[in-house]
């Protein structure tokens, strides 16, 4: 079974945006500090609205924060060898 992971840049962006604390970010996006900790640790994938709120807070596009990584990518259907 393929292992999928969502990498994120939340911690880096917090420090690049005036070193805001996890609590300050949590208050801005309307979640608890524990949720920010879990997101940064990659243990929780946020919902789309929350991901957009985090992106808006940092003023970056959503793909600038969250990147989807498929460790076992499926072969392309339009492969030139096919």
């Amino acid at each position: 079974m393929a292992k999928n992971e969502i990498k994120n840049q939340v911690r880096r962006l917090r420090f690049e945006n005036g070193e805001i604390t996890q609590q300050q970010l949590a208050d801005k996006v309307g979640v608890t500090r524990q949720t920010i900790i879990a997101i940064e640790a990659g243990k929780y994938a946020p919902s789309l609205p929350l991901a957009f709120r985090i992106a808006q807070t940092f003023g970056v596009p959503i793909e600038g924060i969250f990147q989807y990584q498929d460790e076992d990518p499926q072969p392309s259907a339009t492969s030139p060898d096919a």
Partner: protein
Amino acid sequence: MNKTQKSAWCGLVVTLTFLLLCLFLFIELTILKKMFFFMNLLGATLLFGLVVAWVIFICKKQSPTEVKTDERDKLIQTRAIVASFISVGILIALTCLILRFIVGISGTIAVWELTLINFLIFEVALLVYSVAILVQYGLGGRDGEK
């Protein structure tokens, strides 16, 4: 620690106290065959006090900006409710099976025993709910860098 975690810890303490009191009551009624009124009253007062403290603890807000629950808390609570519901099903099935072997298929049990069994099932469900919440937070919500 957020509100859901605090509530789960309070639930755990109240549930364990209640289970201990039930065990004490059971020993009184079956082994000692004597009621200790003062001890029972003390236990009931302690339990009532813990429940009141639980409600105050939950209602008290630490800061005006504090978020009560968010989407992750709701997800954790949903999983805990499922675990609790499954535990109730298993407990009811086990109780029926055990009673079948103890008193027989046409046997009878006292009303107070049935009441105690019902309360115990409810309390174990609450215990499973609290433990499931704390385990889920423990797995993915450790306090990190500020």
